[in-house]
């Protein structure tokens, strides 16, 4: 038994070490220019969703408000998803290749740190990065919605005042109904469900990128693989429909994560009731899948020569 093997057997799994590596990874990632530029861009795009909403062509005040809010929500949540995906993929793809290239991995693994702890720490750091980014983008999105809501309510009240000034008939109930509808539409708590599932999807995408980076040293390769999985994952639903009668195809397709499942935000925006049970089931699917991908990454990484 070599000294190295003996020490590896002696060191037990420690969540504290995982946490330290995770926090370190998060700090390192947040200092990177790529991340900051992506986040800044995301925030600007979300903030500009209001301009996008000007393209609404309804006649009635309620209809115009509904269109504008739909456009902002679609655009905001779309930006959350796109930039979240970019941050998840770019942020994770470089984690291990960078450590190998900078040779810092040797220093870390020479210490009593298990490879699994290192891998889990790196992945947790990436998930924390996604979480922080999503929180910041969601706050911007929330602020945007609150601002728009105020503006639309103000417009409705102004219309009421103008109608009264013209001596026209003012339907107070209708106006109150419009205001309530705008508020309910803008501050819809169901949107949280959409953001939660975007987070799980991004965490899963990060796990897949991590898996690629355990057997490849090229960041470009990792990013490409992650993008391919991202697109393939969204086509699983279509493929399932095409081959619904083939059991073999079903088993093959099960190997690819069905990312379309996580896109409930569109339906929430349209006012579809998405039960929490459905959200929980999809989240469970995501967590089980990402756990297996992280476990697979561990098997490959533990066997890898560094």
């Amino acid at each position: 038994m070599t000294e190295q093997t003996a020490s590896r057997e002696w060191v037990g799994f420690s969540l504290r070490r995982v946490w330290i590596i995770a926090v370190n990874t998060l700090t390192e990632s947040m200092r990177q220019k790529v991340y900051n530029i992506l986040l800044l861009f995301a925030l600007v795009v979300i903030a500009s969703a209001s301009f996008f909403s000007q393209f609404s062509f309804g006649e009635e005040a309620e209809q115009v408000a509904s269109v504008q809010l739909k456009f902002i929500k679609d655009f905001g949540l779309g930006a959350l998803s796109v930039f979240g995906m970019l941050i998840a993929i770019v942020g994770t793809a470089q984690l291990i290749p960078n450590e190998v290239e900078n040779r810092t991995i040797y220093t870390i693994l020479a210490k009593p740190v298990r490879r699994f702890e290192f891998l889990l720490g790196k992945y947790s750091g990436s998930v924390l990065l996604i979480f922080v980014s999503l929180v910041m983008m969601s706050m911007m999105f929330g602020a945007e919605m609150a601002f728009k809501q105020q503006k639309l309510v103000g417009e409705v009240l102004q219309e009421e005042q103008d109608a009264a000034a013209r001596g026209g008939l003012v339907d107070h109930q209708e106006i109150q109904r419009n205001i309530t509808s705008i508020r309910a539409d803008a501050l819809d708590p169901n949107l949280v469900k959409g953001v939660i599932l975007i987070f799980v999807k991004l965490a899963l995408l990060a796990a897949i990128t991590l898996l690629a980076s355990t057997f490849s040293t090229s960041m470009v390769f990792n990013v490409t693989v992650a993008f391919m999985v991202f697109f393939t994952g969204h086509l699983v639903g279509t493929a399932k429909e095409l081959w619904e009668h083939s059991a073999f195809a079903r088993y093959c397709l099960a190997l690819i994560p069905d990312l379309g499942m996580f896109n409930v935000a569109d339906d929430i925006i349209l006012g579809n009731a998405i039960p929490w049970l459905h959200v929980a089931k999809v989240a469970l699917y995501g967590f089980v899948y990402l756990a297996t991908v992280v476990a697979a990454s561990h098997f490959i990484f533990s066997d890898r020569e560094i």
Partner: protein
Amino acid sequence: MRAKLLALLVVALPSWLMLPLVGSIDAESVKLKYGGARVTRQMRDAIGQGMAIALLAGFRGVVADFLWIQSHGYWEKKQWLQQYRDMEVVATLQPQSILFWDEGAWHMAWNIGYAVSVDTNNVTAAQGIKRERAWHERAQEFLARGIENIPNRYELYFKMGWLYLHKLAPDCGDDLACKKTRYCEATEYLRKAASFPDAPSFVGRTYARALEECGDIGAAYQQWISMWKHGPPMSEPSSILEREIRRLEDQFDLPDNVRVFPKHPTKPPASP
């Protein structure tokens, strides 16, 4: 190699074990009508490569919004068929969106309908009228599909009733029987719309008017009375109710003792 095989097995086994969970999620999605139509070759051709990629990346809502804006661009350029094609694609992408069905039908019946009727390319006035009616029918068919997709909301039933009242019935011209049939068809949609608890008061008022157009003045009177009695507390539109009830009571020449608003009141009418 052994580690890679082990890794594949680690991913494969739970994925296969999760098949019942995935099946249950898929079944729920179909039942609750999540998503909308899948991407097909025809759809890809209609929306273009860039949009198709965005669609495949899961940005259905954003793609639908962009196509909607694009369709408005076609309207401004008087390219009505392209506009119609875009509206069809948008409604297919997000069939659960009331907005797209509602505004799409409005564009067809009111905007495009009028624009084609006064189009300088029309050889005769009759051709303009024919084209206008064709667009009204397209709007009707479009809204019918919308109702099929969203049967549990009042909005599209109301819009369909409104379409029958203001476009399809007048399209009958001097054919009174056709006109009456269409007004009566409007009442069916408006009755359904008014039966939703969240339907605003104007839906009930439109229903009453449609009943009158359909020739069922008694039912119209009952509808106004019902709104007066069961409607929300007194407000400005209550004056509309009062005006309409008075008008019909005068028309029926009802005696004071059965009127809601007697001609010579001894006491003020009971407030709703």
